[in-house]
């Protein structure tokens, strides 16, 4: 390994990259814009579920009951419907995602101390949202039931309001949210988005950088020169690693400065882990570039390989613990999951190398493996 040769290769690559103004602009702009767009725009909370109502009772109590849904921020009232057939139509057209049918004699039965059943129709196309909507309905019903019970006990047992309420609600739940005390979506999303943006941009830069030379044939200059394999690979990667390192710092500043996400961990550790992660992702790009012949294949394969497992298996949206075994194996084979743990740990939990060393180790192993594999795959004597 000759430092001067590496420098020369890196310099050439740097020149080529910086002369492409549009590309250079996008390389720095993309992570910033993504973080801003997703940080402000991606709302994972299920809110404003559009719903309609069939009220068969038309009583004061049924209106009181339905009013609780209408004023909840989780639901958005879209009007009354005549009967269930009309609801059917609205659900099929996706005008509403939920419907509530209040039965006849709703008020009468409750006043007589009898249970009533309220039917809810839910759109099941997105099972997660269905499940959450179901939870909201149950919660509203529970509060309403408790109030009815308190009234009932006061009337039948002659208890005071306070006694009745203590009987109906004897158990309080004190919930403490850890690490993200106000449960802000942005706080949990933004650190993960730092991972997402780093994961996508750097392999693409690398893969295209190498395949371009293969496709245009300029790589034959390298084949016939005295540059060794390791020198070529190192020189090739350096500019892209440099771009990504700048992006790490920019993303960190944005997360802390713009989104006010607390950073509780050690910056040195975070930075170190990020650099190792960059080595992993550029390694993925390099590996793809060695396996394909055309830029088109490199572009598409890198995009899909970088994007899909990162959305699905990194813990960005779904925690890894709720994956099935096959998916879990895939998640563990991929560096994004480890880095997500490190980013969230460093930002929100304030844990450092003591806890996260194992994730860092996994990244180091991955980066080393990538280095070894690409070194062996890259040959200066291609069979054609």
């Amino acid at each position, binding site marked *: 390994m000759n430092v001067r040769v590496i420098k020369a290769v890196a310099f050439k690559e740097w020149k080529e990259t910086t002369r492409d103004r*549009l590309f250079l602009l996008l390389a720095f702009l993309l992570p910033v814009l993504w973080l801003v767009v997703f940080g402000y725009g991606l709302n994972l*909370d*299920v809110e404003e579920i559009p719903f309609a109502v069939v009220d068969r009772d038309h009583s004061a109590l049924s209106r009181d009951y339905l009013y609780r849904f209408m004023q909840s921020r989780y639901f958005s009232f879209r009007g009354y419907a005549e009967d269930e057939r009309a609801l059917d139509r609205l659900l099929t057209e996706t005008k509403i995602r939920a419907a509530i049918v209040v039965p006849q004699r709703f008020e009468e039965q409750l006043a007589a101390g009898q249970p009533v059943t309220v039917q809810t*129709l839910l759109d*099941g196309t997105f099972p997660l949202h269905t499940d959450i909507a179901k939870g909201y309905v149950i*919660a509203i019903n529970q509060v309403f039931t408790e109030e009815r019970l308190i009234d009932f006990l006061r009337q039948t047992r002659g208890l005071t309001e306070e006694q009745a309420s203590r009987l109906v609600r004897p158990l309080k*739940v004190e919930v403490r949210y850890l690490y993200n005390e106000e449960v802000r979506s942005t706080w949990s999303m933004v650190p993960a988005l730092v991972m997402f943006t780093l994961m996508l941009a750097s392999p693409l830069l690398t893969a295209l950088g190498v395949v371009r030379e293969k496709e245009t044939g300029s790589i034959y200059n390298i084949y016939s020169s005295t540059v060794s394999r390791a020198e070529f690979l190192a020189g090739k990667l350096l500019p892209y690693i440099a771009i990504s390192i700048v992006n790490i710092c920019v993303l960190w500043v944005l997360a802390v400065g713009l989104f006010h996400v607390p950073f509780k961990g050690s910056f040195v550790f975070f930075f170190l882990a990020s650099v190792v992660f960059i080595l992993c992702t550029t390694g993925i790009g390099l590996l793809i570039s060695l396996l394909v012949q055309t830029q088109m294949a490199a572009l598409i394969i890198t995009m899909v390989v970088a994007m899909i497992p990162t959305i699905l298996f990194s813990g960005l949206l779904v925690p890894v613990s709720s994956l099935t075994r096959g998916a879990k194996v*895939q998640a563990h084979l991929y560096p994004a999951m480890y880095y997500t743990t490190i980013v969230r740990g460093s930002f929100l939990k304030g844990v450092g190398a003591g806890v996260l060393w194992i994730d860092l180790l996994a990244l180091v192993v991955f980066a080393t493996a990538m280095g070894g594999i690409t070194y062996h795959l890259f040959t200066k004597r291609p069979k054609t």
Partner: protein
Amino acid sequence: MTARQRAARWGRRLAALTWKEVLQLSRDLPLLLFLLYSFSLSVLVSGAGITMQLHNAELFVHDADHSRSSRELIHRFQPPYFTLKGEIADARQGLRELDEGRAMMLLDIPPRFHEALMGGEGTAVQVLVDTTNAPQGLSAAGYTVRIAGAFGTDMGLASVGLSGTKATVPVVESAHRVWFNPNQDETWYQSISHVLRMITLFGVLLPASALVREKERGTVEQLLVSPVTPFQIMWSKVLAMSAVILIVTGLAVYGVLRPVFHVPMKGSALLYFLLTALHTFTTAGLGLVAATLARNQAQVGMMALFFVGPMLLLSGITAPFESMPRWVQTIMTLSPLRYYIDITYGVMLKGAGMDVLWKSVGAMVLLGGGLFAFGMWRFRRQFE
């Protein structure tokens, strides 16, 4: 030469160019293999592997009471939502488990729990929830509040000789009917949405990359001096890539979705594939616009990343569209995927026909037409 002969010649030229694209793609073996993988095995893994509903949330319990009531309460935390990981001796150890990510929740039951509950003086349990992943944490807390609330009411009523489940008290019971996916089978949602992602990614990238390739190598100049129009050059790429995507979509639907996950096709399959063709044309329009703005593959890749990323995350597959901020909803009217989601779930799960979908289809036609017109105008202007 009559008009008919001219039209026939025009068609022949378009067909020849289209065939050239298909041939060129079929010779790119790595890309072809990857395309097949993306629409078969990859759909299988992500369809079966992910559950976003709260699933197996790891729960630790600190029970300082060890009474009948505390055991009864703990017993109500059941799979599939919770997995009881065990009891711990002191609360500090629980915090450590949370810190190191081995637990998602810690339930802390105070001493004299049973006594206080039975004596009618009221008590409280404490719950610590990891909210680094905000929606999941909220969901877990929601379930806990519901479980504990129902438990408390049951206990309170039992202590005065009433039973919360019998017909003697005024309670509102929830009956849910879930439509379109009655068992809330999440594999349907996951596998369909994976196919949506893949169609969109390939739909943008394949034509964009195919057009830029000609620009980068200069072969587009040769085409322009030959007796074909710019319209034919652009359309041949769109036709070839759309045909390829339709074929692999067929593979995904009839090779994976139907036989493996038993996803229904309630509406007309013909309508589904026609509208899928419309979607690929529209995404191809996006790709072509990017291709006319870019000069090389690296640029087009970055540009595609720039808008494909937001499209995939904000169009309504990963997060509910209704709860997105207004400005996101406005911007996403430009995303063809937004309409295609309604179309796919509508036709497959809801059995919707054109009478329901005409609005989405109309919007997509307008969008696709606009993109093509713009792309065409840019393409012509470049070479004049």
